[in-house]
């Protein structure tokens, strides 16, 4: 087991790993904070959740970092509470159980269950026209092309199914986990020449996404944080978000509102060059991602032109107040 995970289990003993060493915020809960396998009852879904210790890190990139954009600063110290993060990106196997299983069950005209469960009450995606995987395959491939609203609704469904509160990572949590204690451009250092060991990106992807977990994990055991698919974060995108972070801030987030755009996606993708895979690189969703949806109102579930976006889920050890019961505010009337 890796030292940092061990530390979290043992009550987060500080280990000397430099300025990014995590400091546990909730030692009394730490004994229960270990990796686990989530199994979703009534489905064949199983996925690994990695315990991420709480700690303080520097969000953003330094001025001199190659490929840096202005929205990656100013750098700020941010404290993150302990949480679990999915080891890989959400696969189609996982997402399909949410998106399509109910429709499959109902296709023969069978009446719905007399006592619907909480999960049954959650809205499912309207079926996409055409192939939502755009020919890239399903199964263990990362789910792609879903909108932020759909990713949030997946989390709500998953929470109802499991009784454990899953959600999208905040942007700060995501970067903290991607860095895994590093302060360099990538979690393994600054040398983009090594990126191919850790990531699927434009230089090695063959222009398509790949089965999740196929590349080396970062120091905390997370795969594909760089590349494969860019990953939705919970936050509404705000270019100047970091400049407003107060000293000593814990668990910062720009709560998503009822606007369809822009939200944050992180980590770069199979379709990006190295610089966009940097731990600090930020991306915002735009209407262009759905520029060829011929319907009005346009879908709030699927994109027509974003085959490089996906997501993974997190679960807080102790959820912060402003994220309890978080739910997408987007409706088909959202603009």
């Amino acid at each position, binding site marked *: 087991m890796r030292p940092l995970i061990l530390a979290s289990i043992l009550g987060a003993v500080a280990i000397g790993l430099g300025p990014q060493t995590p400091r546990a915020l909730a030692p009394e809960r730490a004994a229960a904070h270990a990796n686990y396998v989530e199994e979703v009852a009534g489905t064949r879904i199983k996925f690994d959740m990695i315990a991420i210790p709480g700690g303080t890190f520097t969000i953003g990139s330094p001025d001199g970092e190659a490929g840096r954009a202005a929205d990656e600063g100013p750098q700020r110290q941010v404290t993150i509470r302990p949480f679990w993060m999915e080891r890989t990106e959400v696969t189609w196997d996982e997402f399909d159980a949410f998106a*399509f299983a109910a429709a499959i069950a109902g*296709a023969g*005209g069978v009446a719905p269950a007399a006592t619907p469960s909480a999960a049954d009450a959650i809205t499912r995606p309207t079926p996409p*026209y055409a*192939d939502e995987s755009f*020919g890239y395959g399903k199964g263990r491939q990362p789910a792609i092309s879903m909108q932020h609203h759909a990713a949030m609704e997946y989390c709500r469904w998953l929470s109802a199914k499991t009784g454990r509160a899953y959600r999208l990572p905040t942007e700060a949590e995501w970067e903290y986990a991607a860095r895994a204690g590093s302060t360099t451009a990538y979690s393994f250092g600054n040398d983009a020449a090594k990126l191919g060991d850790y990531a699927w990106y434009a230089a090695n992807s063959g222009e398509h996404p790949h089965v999740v977990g196929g590349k080396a994990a970062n120091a905390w055991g997370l795969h594909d944080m760089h590349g494969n698919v860019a990953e939705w974060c919970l936050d509404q995108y705000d270019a100047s978000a970091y400049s407003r972070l107060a000293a000593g801030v814990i668990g910062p987030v720009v709560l998503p509102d009822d606007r369809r755009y822009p939200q944050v996606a992180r980590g770069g993708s199979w379709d990006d060059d190295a610089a966009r895979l940097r731990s600090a690189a930020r991306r915002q969703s735009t209407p262009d991602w759905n520029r*060829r949806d011929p*319907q009005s109102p346009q879908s709030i579930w699927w994109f027509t032109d974003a*085959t490089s976006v996906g997501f993974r889920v997190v679960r807080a050890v102790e959820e912060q107040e402003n994220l309890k019961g978080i739910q997408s505010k987007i409706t088909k009337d959202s603009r």
Partner: protein
Amino acid sequence: MNDKTRREFLKTATTAALATAVTPGVELFPAVHAAGTDAIRVGLIGCGGRGSGAAADVLSSAPGVTLVAMGDLFPDRLKASQDRLRQNFGDKVAVTADRSFTGFDAYQKVLASDVNYVILATPPGFRPTHLKAAVAAGKNIFTEKPVAVDGPGIRSVLATYEDAKAKGLGIVAGTQRRHQTGYLETMKRIHDGAIGSIVAARCYWNQGFLWKKDREPQWTDMEWQIRNWLYFTWLSGDHIVEQHVHNIDVVNWAMRAHPVRAVGMGGRQVRTGDAYGHIFDHFAIDYEYENGTRLMSMCRQIEGCEKNVSEALVGTQGQCRTEDKARYEIAGAKAWKFPVADDNKPYVQEHTDFIASLRAGKPLNELKTVAESTLTAIMGRMSAYTGKAVTWEQALNSQESLVPADVGFGPIATPPVAVPGQTPLV
């Protein structure tokens, strides 16, 4: 029609007399605009998701376009569409209450208004009637695909095509791949011989389920069927016609021909609930072109299965793969790939191209082409429904009229599910 005269007319938009002088009885761009403009006044017939989307597309496609009339069978659909378009396009939506029409005759009222560009986007079963009426009224037409659901409908549409041509009216169809950069660049190369002669082709629209509207107690059978039009062959043509026509059209485009014979199979195996009407959920058709080239076509709407929406061509000197929005590739001696990021917005482009053609006095008329692709799909459906081989002539001359003669609110039974080997070829 003489291009120069027509162009002059479009530029000046002076009087109906000039139009009459050119084409008796047809007023292409009525003289309601200020002199010197060539304003496009759009009427939307069918305010569902696609019709509303098409209205948004045309308003985004060129300057000088306003939406001035709207019609839908249902008041709720009309209002929702109008509210949303107004919110998104402001002054470009100039639809007053007296230009908002509902009911089965809404299309006639839109056509009777001073529009010069109509969007036909109701369920396809109504399309032949609407096309005929729109051409009779002298309107330029953007018509959604497919343009009919049966042989009689296609015969009507082909007659309408001739009428439109005689009147110099423009018609563009919602087979938007023909206005999509990736497809256009691919077809240019195919027609230039990049893969040699085409010896075989494949096309697919294999996807999951689509939407349905749960029946509300106050709905008559007719209202329920029309709100769930996908699932009734008289309204949609079945999904091979309604959806897969896109891929079939691409192969016809590549072949510059339509198949002459089809042998197909299909069934209704999974999506069997009453809510899904009586259409099939899968088809596989072996099409044969005049020159012997075969097209293998598959379409499926069953969730949880392998999905694939694409086309492929096999040539004597290479192969071609196209997949809407995702890839356009030629392999072989003249290997080539279109960068997907450079692809355009075809749903807007088709209106841009159409309006440019109208303003240039050289109106596009795609009706015959889309009618042929529609009939190709109908021919495949007829073969799958009956289990028989079906020729182009049999499909074209079919006496099977699926659309009720008098459509009105009230009882209408769900037709039986076709049974290959028993359902007669009519």
